[in-house]
């Protein structure tokens, strides 16, 4: 409990002060969207934190019940707008399992490549916003340079920078131009790694950054499981849970890579796990480009898909953690129930526990480490 926290407890015993309630957000520069945090402060120390969500609740789960399965892809894109391909893939896997659709070999490779590329861009965005939260302006601008380059590839091959609507049930929309892949390969092999090295030089080794992150808001594996935390945050506590290994999908079992884990469980561990994941993802995307077989990219599926009656739950390692789609079909062209298990929502639920007893400026270091996307939390 918060009262048992050593720092808070001492503070309350020693001095009788009146706490102030500070409403952080929903319109606040570093709230990563419209997130509202009620902080109860004693001086600059946070006594209690109450997250308020729902400012971006657009009713995606309800809207999806009025759309055909193919039209839902538009909503799925906008669910977590930083890792679109992961969302689309998870949704496609759910429908493919429901309707028993086979996916061609090349399409699986393409999907894996796009998912890993988007993991890179998502983590780049996170890196930039961590820099912004901690008061630096440069990291975010630097992070956008490789991001723009990968977006160029997305746009040239799928037609949109952010909202691709590229994956289809039983494959992908269209094949990728080999020349584009060639250019991307050259970029990933050298320039991206150079950029990541530069980020390490700018932020990772910086003593100011280390002093703000080391030992901050530690979390044990048991706590993480209790709060439902998944993804890089869970792997930073020493767990090896990675759905890409535990429940293999795509071509992850055929790639040469390893899941990034850390045992310290603090904010710095979360940071280093994500930084290493970016390199691993770039490596995986490179392998995909090199070893991708030729062939079909799309199986023929009815334009208006009518999956048989039944329900399905698919787990997927999104950039933020375990993304789940629970879809109930009644045999009609529209889903009967469409439910999303959003990783960021579960991760944010650990926030009140993590930041009790922290300072205001520590709060942003903790908050940045969670890497939340409000659109996914509020849906």
């Amino acid at each position: 409990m918060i009262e048992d926290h050593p720092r808070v407890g001492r503070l309350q015993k020693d001095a009788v002060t009146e706490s102030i309630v500070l409403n952080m957000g929903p319109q606040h520069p570093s709230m990563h969207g419209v997130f509202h945090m009620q902080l109860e402060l004693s001086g600059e120390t946070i006594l209690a934190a109450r997250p308020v969500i729902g400012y971006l609740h657009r009713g995606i789960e309800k809207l999806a019940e009025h759309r055909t399965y193919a039209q839902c892809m538009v909503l799925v894109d906008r669910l977590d707008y930083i890792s679109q391909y992961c969302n689309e893939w998870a949704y496609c896997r759910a429908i493919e399992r429901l309707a028993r659709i086979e996916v061609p070999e090349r399409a699986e490779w393409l999907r894996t490549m796009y998912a890993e590329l988007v993991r890179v861009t998502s983590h780049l965005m996170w890196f930039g916003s961590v820099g912004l939260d901690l008061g630096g302006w440069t990291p975010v601008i630097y992070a956008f340079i490789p991001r723009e380059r990968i977006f160029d590839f997305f746009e040239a091959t799928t037609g949109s920078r952010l909202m691709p609507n590229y994956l289809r049930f039983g494959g992908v929309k269209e094949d990728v131009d080999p020349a584009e892949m060639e250019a991307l390969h050259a970029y990933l092999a050298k320039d991206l790694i150079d950029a990541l090295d530069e980020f390490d030089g700018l932020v990772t080794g910086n003593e100011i950054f280390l002093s703000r992150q080391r030992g901050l808001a530690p979390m044990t594996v048991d706590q993480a499981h209790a709060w439902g935390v998944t993804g890089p945050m869970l792997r930073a506590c020493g767990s090896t849970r990675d759905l890409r290994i535990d429940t293999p999908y795509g071509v992850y079992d055929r790639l040469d890579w390893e899941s990034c884990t850390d045992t310290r469980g603090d904010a710095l561990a979360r940071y280093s796990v994500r930084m290493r994941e970016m390199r691993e993802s770039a490596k995986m995307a490179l392998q995909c480009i090199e070893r991708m077989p030729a062939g079909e990219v799309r199986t023929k599926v009815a334009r208006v898909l009518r999956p048989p009656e039944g329900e399905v739950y698919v787990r997927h390692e999104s950039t933020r953690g375990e993304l789940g789609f629970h879809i109930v079909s009644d045999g009609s062209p529209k889903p009967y129930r469409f439910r999303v298990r959003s990783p960021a929502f579960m991760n944010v639920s650990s926030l009140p526990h993590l930041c009790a007893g922290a300072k205001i400026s520590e709060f942003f270091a903790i908050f940045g480490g969670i890497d939340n996307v409000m659109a996914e939390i509020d849906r």
Partner: protein
Amino acid sequence: MNARIFLTQLLGALGLIVILGFNVIIMDWWERKLVGHIHRRPGPMHTGWHGILQPFADMLKMLSKEDIVPDRADRLFFWLGPAVAVVPAFMALAVLPLAPGFALADIGNGLFFVFAMQTIMPFGYTLIGWSGHNKWSLVGALRSAAQLISYEIPMLIVALGILLAAGSARLTDIVNAQSTVWYAVKQPIGLLIFFITAVAEMNRSPFDMPEAESELVAGIHTEYAGMKFGLVMMAEYTAMLVGSWMIVLLFLGGWHLWPLPPSPVWLVLKLYLVQSGIIWLRGTYLRLRVDTMMEMSWKYLIPASLANLMLVGVLATTFKGF
């Protein structure tokens, strides 16, 4: 008082105001340009030649913005805050020499006068933050007060080392004592400490706690709009000018640039180099945490500055002309 002296002083004061305004405009442009190039982007570009007219556009806009005073703000102090922050910085400029003997008032206690004026500035920041009736700016104001008070101590102790070595508190004498070797060479630890504390005194990144943008919306000036915000910005740039000027005078040899003849040009050059360095720091570093920053002052900088003072004292008594 003689009418002629009065007139000269008046003209000098007016000249200082002009210099002040000119500096704010130049620094506003230069900061955006330099930070832009650090970010690999060109910065202001299309408003005049390389965006040189950008500060004028900003100023015109701020002048014509609606002047909001929050409902429950303390109206008097809301007005007074920026003035209390600007005026001491401006007064400190009066004793800062530009060339040998060329200052509005080249007083014998110039060193202490500048520090005395700098001590008033946090009071202005605290007023700015407190009077707006806003929790963010209140937190910023308290941070500002704590930060500026705790960083003044090591700064003054280091300045005592200079006083010990130069044997005079008159700024012109201090500069002239560096005609061959700068105090930056003689007292490198002192320079380091003085530089850190000066950056902290100016509320510049990585010590910009009072206006931590990502934490406390806009910190102390959250409620300031229009030209009052412009005044707060002016206070910050002037504080930066005074701080860098002190660094140049105390450690970087003022108008001396050995082996070239002394000239105010060197002083201005050094002044803007130091300010560019401070902007470079802003483009590179993340913000320190507020309690780390306080710890840094009390645990490390104050003992280090005392050690520096002892060292300087021993050296100054041992070697003549140190």
